[in-house]
């Protein structure tokens, strides 16, 4: 049934923000005609965020006005903004203007200020109005005055179809009065973790919809602000997809032969643990090399760049170039240093979606660990990532380096074993003057496997299992991985 009347009350429209990730954490975007506070200490990105929303609105054909009280001067702000990619000088003067209302505030108080805002909304027909410097406005005003101010602003915003952003550096306790009134409260933060700092954004209040709760990472670069929603909040529901009986190859025929189902369960996750040089990356390259255009593969490495991965593959007789050319394989490199955990996850998941990836190698899991500023988050992060990969039917093989070169004890960070389906352990043993590589299958999801120690060979034919290793008791590893104490997360070596 349709109605031609204009008084039907539907869902309030959203304002598309052009800030990547922001609308996602707001559950669709700011509501049009809403009044929102954006709060944070100086330098945390309020001005950039508000400007980016203005310029984005202008780019969509709307108009915006940026009203300052005691903020940085307009010319200085324009100088700073002109270095950012979204800055568009053509927006002036019809679509965007910076004006100061301090004189009106000083001479006529909140009433005077309200007069300016009302007039600007009406005459410029703006869809977005920013008021920068709410602290100055609230100076000397009573709580009741402020509440009335916000209330009036809300009424005008609805009448003029304008979304209002109030910027303030004030702290949350001091500013309680208007917080109770506004439609939403967004807080920006720039916090130091040892030597590195991480910016975050948190939606503390949002009327009318459920935002993604908690703090999300935020990056400011030449394109302005990008928000990276925490993947735990993005993919909250546990994967409903149950593993079916499909099987995919590990990429190593002699390993497949050891497994009852002759391969790895489709959409399962495997971790290969071992010290440096034991063959973890090699195993990953084998797994990757089994990719086809129908089952595309992706290789994400944190330490070795694509050229070194290609060279390694060549030395194993597993050229990747043809697979790359056919689109069956993509190599991706990520610097482990400054990237944000959720930024990497976002990059990874969008690369998977782009090519419908079915086989994934993450070489150097600790690259992820190094990117986490809260180590206690790692467990939740990975269980969520693994779940999401499973629901996308991606079979993943990850490598993780242990500290000790020769050891019979596996020390494993953050209870990896609980998070993944299959676990392989690679290591060196001394055997009467020889050094041997051994593989142990520690865990396989829902499938039988031949336990015991396998001798591994790596040569120009690649990696393969070369029989069973019979050894003295002292090199047999403990069958159970050694997890860290409850609640603590030992930091692994690279």
């Amino acid at each position, binding site marked *: 049934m349709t109605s031609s009347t204009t008084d039907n009350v539907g869902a309030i429209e959203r304002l598309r923000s052009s800030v990547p990730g922001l609308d996602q954490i707001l559950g669709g975007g700011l509501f049009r005609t809403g009044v929102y506070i954006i709060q944070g200490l100086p330098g945390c990105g309020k001005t950039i965020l508000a400007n980016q929303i203005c310029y984005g609105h202008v780019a969509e054909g709307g108009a915006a006005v940026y009203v300052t009280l005691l903020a940085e001067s*307009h*010319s*200085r702000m324009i*100088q700073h903004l002109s270095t950012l990619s979204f800055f568009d000088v053509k927006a002036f*003067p019809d679509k965007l203007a*910076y004006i*100061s*209302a301090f004189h009106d505030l000083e001479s006529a108080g909140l009433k005077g200020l309200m007069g*300016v805002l009302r007039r*600007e909304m009406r005459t410029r027909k703006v869809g977005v109005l920013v008021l920068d410097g709410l602290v100055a406005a609230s100076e000397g005003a009573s709580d009741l005055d402020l509440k009335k101010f916000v209330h009036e602003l809300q009424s005008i915003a609805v009448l003029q179809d304008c979304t209002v952003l109030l910027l303030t550096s004030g702290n949350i306790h001091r500013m309680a009065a208007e917080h109770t009134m506004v439609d939403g409260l967004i807080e920006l933060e720039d916090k130091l973790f040892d030597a590195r700092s991480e910016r975050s954004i948190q939606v503390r209040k949002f009327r009318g919809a459920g935002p993604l709760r908690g703090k999300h990472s935020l990056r400011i670069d030449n394109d302005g602000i990008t928000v990276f929603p925490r993947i735990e909040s993005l993919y909250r529901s546990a994967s409903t997809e149950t593993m079916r009986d499909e099987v995919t190859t590990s990429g190593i025929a002699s390993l497949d032969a050891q497994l009852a189902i002759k391969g790895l369960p489709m959409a399962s996750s495997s971790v290969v643990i071992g010290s440096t040089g034991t063959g973890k990356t090699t195993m990953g390259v084998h797994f990757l090399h089994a990719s086809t255009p129908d089952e595309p593969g992706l290789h994400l490495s944190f330490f070795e760049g694509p050229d070194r991965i290609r060279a390694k593959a060549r030395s194993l007789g597993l050229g990747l170039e043809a697979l790359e050319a056919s689109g069956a394989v993509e190599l991706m490199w990520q610097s482990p240093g400054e990237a944000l955990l959720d930024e990497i996850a976002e990059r990874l998941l969008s690369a998977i979606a782009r090519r419908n990836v079915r086989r994934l190698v993450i070489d150097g899991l600790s690259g992820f660990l190094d990117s986490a500023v809260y180590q206690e988050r790692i467990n939740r992060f990975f269980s969520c990532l693994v779940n999401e990969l499973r629901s996308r039917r991606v079979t993943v093989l990850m490598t993780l380096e242990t500290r000790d070169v020769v050891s019979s004890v596996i020390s494993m960070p953050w209870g990896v074993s609980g998070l993944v389906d299959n676990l392989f352990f690679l290591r060196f043993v001394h055997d009467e003057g020889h050094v041997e590589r051994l593989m142990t299958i520690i865990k396989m999801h829902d499938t039988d496997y031949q336990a015991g120690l396998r001798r591994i060979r790596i040569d120009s034919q690649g990696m393969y299992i070369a029989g069973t290793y019979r050894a003295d008791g002292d090199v047999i590893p403990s069958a159970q991985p050694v997890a860290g104490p409850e609640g603590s997360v030992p930091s692994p070596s690279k």
Partner: protein
Amino acid sequence: MKTILVVDDELGSAEVLSLILEEEGYRAFCAVNGQLALIQARDVVPDLVIVDYMMPLMNGAEFARALRADPQFANTKIVLNSGLPEVAIRDQFDGYDAFLRKPFKVETLLDLVQQFIGR
């Protein structure tokens, strides 16, 4: 004594400029938007106006057009200034005597003022 009217919605910067101009021996006045500036201009008939472009109520271009349309300001010099580049503004008004891109150095402004109206 020559009279200068400084028009800028960022009142702080208008006030600083007018103080400097007074120290340089000019009579200086301030206004925070084009509308108020027009009223004041009729009162003091300035020899020169230093006017910001982006302002509430009446912007610098509108103010300057109104000034140009009024014969009593036939000899008034107009120095338009803005944080925006000149090309973004010229469409709106190009009858100014000089354009200054903000932020500018005070010497640049004082040189211009002296060139236009002397001391």
